[in-house]
């Protein structure tokens, strides 16, 4: 129960991360770097500081509060990320909430207490807790301990994962999961690397392992216009899913939600091909994918 995990948000009344009313725990750190990432604050596996320039009122309290002299006068580049340790002293001093700490450490016991507060709503709705991220399996010992404790306390636990984990480390977790949302982006290895910066061999083999064991998996796929909505990829995904003996695929619509957060986190803009275009085409791309995948024999939900 004393095991530490790093999370960046606990969102209550989540109703789209599994059945019923749920609390979604966002764990920090991700092995992928998807070009469309909507939660860039989830990527780095450490506490960091976000600076929202438009909220800054120029009070200047942050300069005095920073023990590492990591703040600069320029509002365009307030944080010297080389020096910043993410301690959060500046965020505590900022009255305007322009500086915010992203990420906090919690023990299993603390997190369990926090998610247990909505226990009555899980009971009345058939809901529970969903671990999301980031990529929760990057903190495997923590989530294993948490899932065991939560299950022991009568809560049901779900997991949202990109599948990039070691099977042997994951296997003991399986018994404590009531559902797994398993995201597939691309089947072709080269395309996957191009879009996410990572290899997909483990992702595909873990999917097979789960399917073989009859785990409660729902495969999902974000549909990104101009990236993974090609006829080839859709066919490959359909073939792969059907090949596992699964029938359902849940599609996620693309949103340019991550955009505004990138600057705040001092991350370079990922190379999304003409972002405005992607946004405008998101709806058409999604409905095209739904149609095609249904033709290929899948039950598609959105």
């Amino acid at each position, binding site marked *: 129960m004393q095991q530490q995990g790093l999370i960046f948000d606990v*969102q*209550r*009344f*989540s*109703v*789209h*991360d599994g059945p*019923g*009313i749920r609390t*979604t725990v966002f764990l920090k750190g991700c092995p992928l770097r998807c070009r469309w990432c909507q939660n860039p604050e989830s990527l780095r596996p450490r506490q960091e500081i976000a600076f929202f320039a438009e909220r800054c*009122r120029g*009070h200047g309290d942050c300069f005095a509060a920073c023990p590492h002299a990591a703040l600069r006068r320029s509002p365009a580049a307030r944080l010297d990320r080389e020096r910043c340790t993410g301690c959060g002293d500046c965020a505590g001093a900022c*009255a*305007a*909430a322009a500086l915010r700490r992203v990420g906090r450490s919690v023990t299993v016991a603390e997190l369990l207490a926090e998610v247990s*507060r*909505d226990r*009555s*709503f899980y*009971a*009345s*709705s058939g*809901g529970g807790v969903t671990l999301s991220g980031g990529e929760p399996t990057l903190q495997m010992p923590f989530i294993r301990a948490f899932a065991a404790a939560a299950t022991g306390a009568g809560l049901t636990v779900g997991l949202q994962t990109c599948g990039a984990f070691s099977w042997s480390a994951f296997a003991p977790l399986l018994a404590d999961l009531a559902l797994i949302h398993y995201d597939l982006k691309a089947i072709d290895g080269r395309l996957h690397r191009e879009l996410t910066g990572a290899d997909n061999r483990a992702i595909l083999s873990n999917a097979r392992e789960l399917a073989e064991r009859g785990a409660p998996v729902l495969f*999902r796929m974000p549909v990104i216009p101009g990236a993974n909505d090609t006829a080839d990829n859709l066919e490959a995904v359909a073939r792969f899913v059907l090949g596992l003996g699964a029938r359902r695929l*849940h*599609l*996620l*619509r693309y*949103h*340019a*939600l991550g*955009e*505004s957060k990138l600057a705040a986190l001092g991350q370079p803009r990922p190379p999304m091909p003409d972002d405005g275009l992607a*946004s405008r085409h998101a*709806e058409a791309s*999604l*409905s095209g994918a*739904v149609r095609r995948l249904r033709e290929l024999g899948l039950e598609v*939900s*959105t």
Partner: protein
Amino acid sequence: MTVTVSDRVRALDRDIRAAAPHLCAERALLVTRYFKTRADPHQPTVMQKAEALRFLLANKAVHIYPGELLVGCFTAHRVGGGLYPELHGVAVLEDLFAFETRPVNPLRLAPGDRYRLLAEVLPYWVTRFLAMRAFPLRRALAFVKDQLAPRFYLINETGGVSHFVPDYAGLLRHGTSGYRAMVARELASVAPGSAEESFLRSVLIACQALEEFAAGYARKAAELAGAETDPSRREELREIAATCRRVPAQPPETFREALQAILLAQIALNLESLDNAVSPGRLDQLLWPTYQREVAAGRLDAQAAFELLGCFALKLCEIVPAFSRRITRFHGGLFNGQVVVVGGQDRDGADATNELTMLFVELMDQLRTRQPNYHARLHPGSPRSYRARIAAALAAGAVSPALYNDDVIVPLVRSRGASLEDARDYATVGCVEPVASGNSFLSTDAALVNVPLCLELALHGGRQPRAWQRTGAATTAIAGCAAIADVIELLRQQLDFALHRLLDDLGAIERANGRWHPTPLTSMLLGGCIANHRDASSGGATYNGSGIQAVGVVDVADSLSALDHLVFRECRATLAEVASACRNNFAGAEKLRARLRAAPRYGNDDAAADGMVGRVMTLFADLLRARTSWRGGEYVAGFYSVTAHQAFGEVVGALPNGRGAGEPFSSGLSPQSGAERRGPTATLCSMAHLPLAVAKNGANFNLELAPWVGAEEQGAAWLGALIDGSFAEGGMQLQVNVLDPAVLIEARDHPGRYPGLLVRVSGYSAYFDDLSPKMKQEIIDRTMYGRPNALSRHS
């Protein structure tokens, strides 16, 4: 259930919605004429009052409108408000030359009425209305002047008591003939010439008044039937005549007779005293035996009953309260508070939901009328179908019913002395106030108190900033406080000072109501009065007491939390700095204000911030407990605010929770708008974990949900789960709003005003404020056009 609003009811609804509300002079003129020319001053007041009611009911205009099945009019106009010159009517007449032209709630006057009110009514009552009789002249004048623009408290009881659930079960069982027999028996046991005898005789006059009122409608219906050319309408009019000849004198035998008897009594009670919160109560229970009997006999079916219930509901829409602009600030919204309660437990604790309950739920969804104010009781044994139907209606944007948790409220009613059976048979009155049905006279809306004003006085040594003189207690300077407990002690002293003055004034009003405004008809229909030989206004009912509302408790608690956090824990500011910033409405102190706003606040399931609200609630309730009402029974605290949270807010300067001078307080025990940041379950937990046992007079909790919740396929299920989860946590009451796109637009134009507003993006929900302008626009567009986007609904 396959019942639909009939064409007849739709037509009645259309007519009522189209009718311009009037200020009706009829009641004032008749009552004045009675007291000026007919009353025998040697007769006891209670009998004069009964005779006045009889005179009014016998002489008021009788209208039967096209298509009506149930008859009886509150006023001479299709939609109107009466005037109560012996109570607060004189004060209402301050708008005599503005009723038609005022922008909010304009009221028309019939030709000549303005003159008659001015010439006949005003001169007679200006020296005789209740406030004038409660106090010596100079004090009375000062009191009236203060109460028209109150700062510390508003004593609603100056306008009469009302606020009760009549014993309509008794009326249906006995009819007035039964009450006559009952009174005759009691008369044998009282001394001739005693006050008890006068009271009992006044009840007999009230019986006669009600019978004559019905007879007038029987005559009118028969007369109209004679002239009617349409044979089916002629038959309806004949049936109306027959019904009004039988009830309320005899116990009703049919469903229609039962509703007609209740309606006539409801009108008469509204005319006897303050036309506010005469609440019919648990109609699904009262009418159930008659309904079952009639359905079994094949004389009634669900659709016919549904039509009659629709006719009844629309009748209750024909009355509006006539207030002046200044009074409207506190009681806005043309609200008469006639509560109909459905569902819940029966007297033995078993589930009481029946077919009629479902008809009512259907009615409130299909025929969304202003009145009655529908409430639904829930307990763990409430059937799924009932819960689901309510959740579906609310998710689709119906704002009725408001929801009440038996598990919390039954013990609360018990704690005021009611038996377990009576407590289980509770109904609600006016806005939210729970009372045992048919035998409680609890003046639930006796007064409203401006609690944040007391905090302001505590911050500034008893004197409001820029005030000429000290109006609060002479408390010590805030700078001397070393802990938040010291600040709370100053608040306690100010509150104690204000409540003492309030209870002194209220005591005088209670005595004046007992002496000058007895209500024999009300007393006949309140269990205890006949047996005790005493009028309700003098404490004759079985259960007595008085409810005082604390307005602005959440703002006070959030202010204390902010002071505790910033001054005593983080030491980022001093009390003097905060007090000074408040005095200057945060001019030049934007940073301090931002820090105060960022402190922990109620509504986020934060134990410390929520606990502070509990502390202020308990403080208020404990101070009230020191005194008892003149009628008997305790003063209990309520935590609902009508619209007083806005009106009282106007006279209070900036507060340490960051609220600016003159801005409204939060409503009831709902979080201050903009304070909730963790979504609905957190807010519901905050509400449920308050010490609700001290909220004996009730409280209101608003739950506002984003429109996507209602728009989604599972929206009703989620909403139902929110309600059930909240009540399982110990929640007391809920009123649900599924948000309107207009709110989203406001949220877009004023970022920060709704930081807790969750919106559906895709695959997850996000706080609206956290979205890019483009995304916000997309969300607004979705809700604006109401197109259920099948593809992005889930993900």
